[in-house]
């Protein structure tokens, strides 16, 4: 009995320690959800009278709706650009010899490694000269750069698992490279391509640092308006907006997690 206790005690301690860390990672962000149902005009932690007041204020505000619409617009644009270019890059990388592939791959991932503010300053300076600051096009370009590495990695790892014999068979049977891609390669990496598209959407939808610099006053996205509101807004609308942003991310990424679970 004592032996068994001695053996199970470290296990229990480990479960408590590990479980606490996992809880520390996920619980804090969830506390914003109950707060969002406050009906009061002042801040309260646990709503005394729960209601949808804050959500109504958010969805009825032309200002906030304009920012939300712009965020979606930019995210769809960045998703398309990053997914197409990232998939092309992943396909191209596969043809290279291992050494040059690894080098180029490390270079293509660089936009994730370069600190946001460094890229933000660089983009701000160059985009200002090109008249792209404060435009949706400028935001799409910058967000595409940031989402691009994820597509390269996701699609690249899907391609890694493919049997090249299938494509070789298709090519040797007389199908051109385009037909082979459309009929043989793409169906096998479809999930990774769509998954990384969703991920790219999310990267753009949540981006705030680069956007702060290049959105100017004319093209504020939802996160930039939230950033401003953190400093200036006193009414408790932010928990509701935060919840909307969380729900949007979860909705966009749930298919991705389901795919990941089925494949792993």
């Amino acid at each position, binding site marked *: 009995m004592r032996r068994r206790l001695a053996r199970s005690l470290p296990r229990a301690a480990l479960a408590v320690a590990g*479980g606490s860390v996992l809880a520390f990672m996920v619980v804090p962000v969830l506390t914003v959800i109950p707060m969002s149902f406050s009906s009061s005009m002042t801040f309260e932690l646990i709503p005394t009278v729960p209601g949808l007041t804050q959500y109504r204020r958010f969805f009825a505000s032309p200002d906030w709706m304009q920012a939300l619409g712009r965020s979606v617009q930019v995210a769809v644009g960045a998703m398309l650009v990053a997914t197409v270019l990232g998939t092309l*890059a992943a396909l191209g990388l596969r043809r290279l010899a291992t050494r040059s592939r690894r080098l180029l791959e490390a270079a293509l991932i660089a936009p994730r490694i370069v600190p946001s503010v460094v890229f933000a*300053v660089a983009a701000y*300076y160059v985009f200002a000269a090109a008249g792209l600051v404060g435009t949706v096009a400028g935001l799409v370009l910058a967000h595409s750069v940031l989402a691009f590495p994820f597509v390269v990695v996701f699609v690249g790892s899907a391609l890694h698992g493919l049997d090249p014999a299938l494509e070789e068979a298709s090519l040797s049977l007389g199908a051109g490279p385009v037909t082979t891609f459309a009929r043989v390669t793409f169906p096998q990496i479809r999930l990774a391509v769509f998954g990384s598209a969703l991920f790219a959407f999310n990267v753009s939808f949540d981006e705030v640092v680069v956007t702060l610099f290049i959105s100017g006053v004319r093209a504020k996205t939802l996160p930039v308006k939230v950033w401003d509101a953190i400093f200036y807004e006193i009414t408790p609308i932010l928990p509701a907006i935060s919840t909307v942003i969380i729900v949007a991310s979860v909705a966009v990424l749930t298919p991705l997690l389901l795919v990941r679970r089925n494949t792993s």
Partner: protein
Amino acid sequence: MLLLGPPLAFLLVVFVVPLARVVWGSVFAPDFTLAFYERMWRTPVYGRVFWITFKISVLTTGFAALLGYPAAYFLATVTPRTRQLLLLCVIVPFFLSVLVRNYVWIVLLQRTGLVNRLLSDWGLIRTPLDLMYNELGVLIAMVNMLLPYMIFPVLSALLAIPPELRQASASLGAPPARTFWRVTLPLSMPGVAAGGLLVFIVSLGFFITPALLGGPKQMMVSNLIEFSVRQVLNWPFAFALANTLLIGTLLLYAIYIRALEGRMPRTAGLP
């Protein structure tokens, strides 16, 4: 090369050229000068910003290792099904808006926030604690956000250890604690090193957290860059700062790639 052409051209124009402009602008204004770097190194205020950036990054890395290791170890001991489920706690927050997660910490840590409210309700404190606008607040939020970068490499290192090694150690008479210290921990150190380097690299460039949860004394290099550009419009000085941060980050990233070549899956710091 036909396939790589468009993505490379895109990155060249939208990413490489702007960064090259930063490097160029930090030493040509318009004639060659190192005055901006000199100012950066000579002025004690700016030296302090670099020191704080380094210090906060080291502390964040240390705490992420201290908290992340037990979490990864726990995840390595449960069944694969449970692990898949528990990993959602690591993956899902990682995907959520960084801004929202920082905002939540403001709500929780401010003087009238949830943490202070609970502590005083339980009678543990009389006056609210200062949990933010200081180093503590920055560290809490940064560790919270960077833990996934630590947990994933450590977990994959732990799972890669053949169970036979532990069984051999146990059958040779080592108690579990000694097996952990002499077998499991040393063999998982590459994962800790990978995770630590990754956390440190990402920490160096942090901007949102020190801006929202730090006070004036927690200004990090990224915040100083933003201040130089948006408040005082000193572009060449901001370029010099940005270039220094860029070179430091890229050097560490190169070390990360070289040291872990082939040993860790390359995932752009993604789970």
